[in-house]
């Protein structure tokens, strides 16, 4: 019980951000004409805020599934690097008999936010670190599913004009860019991203820009590898 209480206290900093962004993404889905069932399913299965917001755009744009798969890989590629820090930790949680599912569950529920909470976790003596980690991941997941579904349900109940709420996605990304800019040892990656995005916006128009811009950035980053000092994983999270 002590462990659970400690875990819940660690979640407080992201309580409001999960509630707010979750509700916003539920509202977005509702505005695009989808029922709360889809908000629940996507929150439960995908559980990635920025991806769920991009998803709404993809659903209404007629982008082919293969392209959606590639885009998801690109947008969520950062998750690959979160997992690296927790391989041994999560594996030891799943070592006990019948505990293997916990290993998989923890690996699949590591998000931007939960990653940063687990990285900052300094468990006092006498408490069970692994149980606390599992509890944090579980409750964050439940909270996210709750707020996304709530947003979609609220959208149905409230007849208010929510035009412009989709700007919260832009705002989320701008806030992350500011965080990354301030933490980065080199600003070249951000500048490369900006140049390729703007270039392909003018070359290919608003709907054809994203994949070429992402590919161009990867190529440019590889070519400029020697000029970009890499930062540690600790400042990489957003």
């Amino acid at each position: 019980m002590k462990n659970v209480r400690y875990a819940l206290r660690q979640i407080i900093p992201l309580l409001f951000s999960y509630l707010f962004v979750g509700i916003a993404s539920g509202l977005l889905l509702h505005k695009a004409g989808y029922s709360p069932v889809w908000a629940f399913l996507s929150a439960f299965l995908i559980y990635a805020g920025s991806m769920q917001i991009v998803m709404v755009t993809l659903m209404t744009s007629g982008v082919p599934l293969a392209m959606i798969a590639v885009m998801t890989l690109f947008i969520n590629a950062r998750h690959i690097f979160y997992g690296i820090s927790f391989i041994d930790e999560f594996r030891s949680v799943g070592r006990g008999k019948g505990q293997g599912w916990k290993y998989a569950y923890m690996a699949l529920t590591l998000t931007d936010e939960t990653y940063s909470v687990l990285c900052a976790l300094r468990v006092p003596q006498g408490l069970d670190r692994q149980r606390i980690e599992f509890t944090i991941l579980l409750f964050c997941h439940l909270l996210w599913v709750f707020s996304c579904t709530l947003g979609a349900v609220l959208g149905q109940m409230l007849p208010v004009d929510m035009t412009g709420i989709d700007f919260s996605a832009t705002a989320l990304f701008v806030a992350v860019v500011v965080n990354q800019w301030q933490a980065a040892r080199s600003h070249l990656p951000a500048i490369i991203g900006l140049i390729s995005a703007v270039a392909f916006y003018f070359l290919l128009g608003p709907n054809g820009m994203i994949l070429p811009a992402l590919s161009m950035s990867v190529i440019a980053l590889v070519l400029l590898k020697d000029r970009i000092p890499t930062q540690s994983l600790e400042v990489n999270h957003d």
Partner: protein
Amino acid sequence: MTDTLQTAAIIGVIALMTWVTRGLPYLLFSRKSPPPAVTYLGAALPSAIMVILVVYCLRNTAWTVAPYGAAELISVAVVALMQIWRKNSLLSIFTGTACYMILIRTAFPMA
């Protein structure tokens, strides 16, 4: 019905690919540490991706007719300044979104 299938397929594909990105390190690097090229891209790529996403979000802004994307530009600036000032993402997102929703109803009403 096709709409339902289409929606389920999109959610399924995105979920599956998200699981791939989350599960990959456990499958690949459980025994050895990741190669330097992977670590490098892991550190450098997110900053580029996020800037691209910002531009992508603003892609449907009408830059060439009055008010020339003023509501978007002002609200983006509000988010950035709030984030620099208070370093609270929730507050920045909330203030910026509120600013945008007010601007498109008052100063720059959409046609």
